[in-house]
């Protein structure tokens, strides 16, 4: 009905929902949930292998031929750590599309935008397609675009908080401030939150906890797939305005009269 493709790093994606791989009750449940979400891009963390090696691996359940992997730099508190983590990810064969996180504080997990900006500059110079997780400040979003970010990913609310989009006004201002796609990352709690993000005009939504920690991750993943499509379509369809007063939906004319 409408083009709903998202272009990232020269690749086309039919789905505008990006999902994570953390915190699921089981790998099997994760596999089903990701399937149900319709996501084509899947975030992964880069962590030390447990030694001695062998044992189940995440990628036995997320087929890299089927999904585009999006390694993140979660847990990095400096630009240097984040950049080196991306180098590792590339060498590990996870590609050059990276979700860049430079965390500023362990309590809120808000980004350290200074380190983020620096790492974005370095990595995009190095040929990475950088998706930085940032705050909802439109000026910072523009700086990230100027530093080479392929996308800006403002938080809707703190990671894992489920508070939804706390400040839609700022998301709107970001959408007007940058030309690259805007993906809301973090904060989504339920389906309507994802729909709202898309209705604002965002290009996509990234989430992990909302699905993985729901009572039924597979059902929630389906809900999120539907909600992102619904929100996108509603945005394209052009919603009605808001009015304080009512307007009848049935004709005022032609009402039968029952004179007594």
């Amino acid at each position, binding site marked *: 009905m409408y083009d709903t493709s998202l272009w990232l790093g020269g690749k086309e994606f039919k789905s505008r929902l990006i999902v994570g791989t953390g915190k699921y009750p089981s790998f099997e449940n994760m596999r089903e949930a990701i399937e149900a979400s319709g996501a084509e891009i899947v975030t*992964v963390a880069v*962590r030390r*292998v447990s030694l*001695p090696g*062998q044992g189940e*691996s*995440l990628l036995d359940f997320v087929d890299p031929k089927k999904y585009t992997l999006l390694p993140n730099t979660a847990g990095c508190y400096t630009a240097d750590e984040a950049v*080196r983590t991306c180098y590792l990810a590339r060498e590990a*064969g996870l590609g050059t599309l990276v979700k860049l996180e430079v965390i500023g504080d362990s309590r809120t997990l808000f980004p350290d935008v200074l380190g983020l900006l620096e790492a974005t500059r370095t990595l995009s110079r190095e040929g990475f397609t950088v998706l930085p997780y940032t705050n909802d400040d439109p000026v910072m979003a523009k700086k990230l675009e100027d530093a080479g970010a392929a996308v800006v990913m403002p938080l809707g609310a703190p990671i894992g908080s489920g508070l939804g989009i706390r400040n839609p006004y700022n998301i709107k201002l970001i959408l007007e401030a940058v030309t690259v796609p805007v993906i809301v990352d973090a904060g989504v709690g339920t389906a309507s939150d994802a729909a709202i993000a898309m209705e604002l005009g965002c290009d996509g939504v990234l989430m*992990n906890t909302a699905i993985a920690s729901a009572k039924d991750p597979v059902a929630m993943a389906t809900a999120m797939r539907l909600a992102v499509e619904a929100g996108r379509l509603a945005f394209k369809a052009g919603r009605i305005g808001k009015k304080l007063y009512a307007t009848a939906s049935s004709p005022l004319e032609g009402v039968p009269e029952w004179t007594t």
Partner: protein
Amino acid sequence: MTVTVNGKPMEVPEGFSVEDLLARLKVRREFTAVALNREVTQRARYAETRLSDGDRIEIVHPMGGG
């Protein structure tokens, strides 16, 4: 000599290579990367890259995350 692998000390013989290390630790090669003292080691160089006493090695792979 002693090297540190993923934060843990480990005894290895002189001239031990990254390749030898991964082999001994039975590390799956697929989607795995290695950093030696802060620098990423290219897969192609595992065999020729010899470890020295005090080296710090990080061996990583993808894990569930968001």
